[in-house]
């Protein structure tokens, strides 16, 4: 199935063709930009969901999926998990926490391995999200790996960022130093069923108010399903993205730069030469700046 065939069938709602199209984009066999998936207007339809491992991102996304599907929306999820830096393999386990993935026809979930992209975002994620919107999904959720600083890269792809936090993760200084709090358009403190969640939410509110233009902080429980419809309606009413446009362009630039570097034909040879001491990192960077060889 070539890309044009897959695209034509995927637009009519054929899941298998859509799945194949995503594979073709992901593996670099087709250039998403050629099919028009590369650029789009920011319209709030791509939501990034980030937060540390174990805060309940996948379970919360599952609740959101049910809510949106019940309202008649078609939603796609790109759930990212890390690839092993050693073997390149990956165990993709977000899907098993999303019951909606297997049960609701309005929902399409695709597990995506990082394939060792720095920043924790696969190079072609933007094109994959664009393809899903093009093929009739009303919104796309990108669930990130959830490890710290690198997560900032999500603003390169997502129009809005939902940061999921949980209680019992230390004091709010932990949340502040991650840097993501500054970029989040909305914060959901999950596990409201646990002690200390309400206080934790208050602490986050407090620290956000210090910086002015504070995003909404919601208390939810993915386990019990509380606060979910409030979260959905607040998501609908979000103002313009908080991440400064300049920060978004910065992340996009870095993302494209790394993609260009890592998809070079000679990247493996470069690594070989570095490993054997044949060349050095500054030398290679120098070559790039001077123009290609």
């Amino acid at each position, binding site marked *: *199935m070539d890309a044009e065939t897959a695209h034509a069938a995927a637009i009519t709602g054929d899941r298998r063709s859509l799945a194949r199209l995503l594979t073709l984009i992901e593996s670099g066999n087709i250039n998403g930009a050629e099919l028009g998936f590369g650029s789009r207007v920011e319209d709030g339809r791509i939501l990034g969901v980030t937060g540390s491992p174990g805060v309940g991102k996948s379970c919360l996304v599952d609740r959101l999926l049910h809510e949106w599907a019940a309202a008649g929306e078609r939603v796609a999820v790109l759930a990212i998990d890390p690839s092993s830096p050693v073997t390149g*393999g990956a165990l993709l386990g977000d899907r098993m926490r999303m019951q909606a993935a297997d049960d609701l026809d309005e929902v399409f979930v695709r*597990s995506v391995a990082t394939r060792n992209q720095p920043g924790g975002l696969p190079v072609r994620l933007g094109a994959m999200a664009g393809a899903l919107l093009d093929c009739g999904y009303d919104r796309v959720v990108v669930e990130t790996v959830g490890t710290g600083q690198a997560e900032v890269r999500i603003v390169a792809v997502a129009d809005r960022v939902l940061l999921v936090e949980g209680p019992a993760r230390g004091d709010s200084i932990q949340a502040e130093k991650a840097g993501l709090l500054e970029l989040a358009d909305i914060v959901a403190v999950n596990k409201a069923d646990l002690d200390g969640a309400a206080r934790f939410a208050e602490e986050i509110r407090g620290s956000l108010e210090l910086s002015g233009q504070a995003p909404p902080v919601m208390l939810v429980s993915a386990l019990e399903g509380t606060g979910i419809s409030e979260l959905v309606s607040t998501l609908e009413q979000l103002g313009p993205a908080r991440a400064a446009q300049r920060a978004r362009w910065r992340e996009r630039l870095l993302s494209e730069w790394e993609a260009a570097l890592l998809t070079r034909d000679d990247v493996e040879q470069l690594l070989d030469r570095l490993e054997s001491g044949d060349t050095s990192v500054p030398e290679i960077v120098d070559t790039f700046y001077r123009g290609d060889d």
Partner: protein
Amino acid sequence: MTLNSIENGKVVVQLKGVRRLDADVSTPLRIVIAKPGLDGHDRGAKVIARALRDAGHEVIYTGLRRTPEQIVRTVMDEDADLLGLSSLSGAHDFLFPRVCNLLVEAELLDVVVFGGGIIPDADRPSLLELGIRAIFGPGTTIEEMLAFVTELGERRAAGEPSGVGEGGDWTWQATGDT
């Protein structure tokens, strides 16, 4: 290098957009490891998932207690190359054929299906006839399972039928099975 796909109900061979099980392509295989039915034991499935990951593949684990319909949906949406079914509950004679039939109905003919768990010898021939290409029981080494995956790669590269709906009578010849 060939890629089999389905058009108008026929298996066609194309040369474009190749990435599948060719050994010289660095794109990892996508493998779904599934637990059909009410069986609550997934230690084996998790060991297999981990071994395949360590061999450089991308493994999607479904979690426990999935229906055949849910499993086929996962295979479709994830565009998986292989599907591993694990059952220790004795319900394999109902669940495995159901999954295979649904895969064929969904025209996912090129998906390679293998099984594992507690599958008595007497039950194996009929499952293999359905298009399941290998059944791994207790005592199977990880090396053997990976050898199966590698041989599949070679078969696919040579355009030999390996998927659940591609026919042919090839099955994995166990080397160290108990």
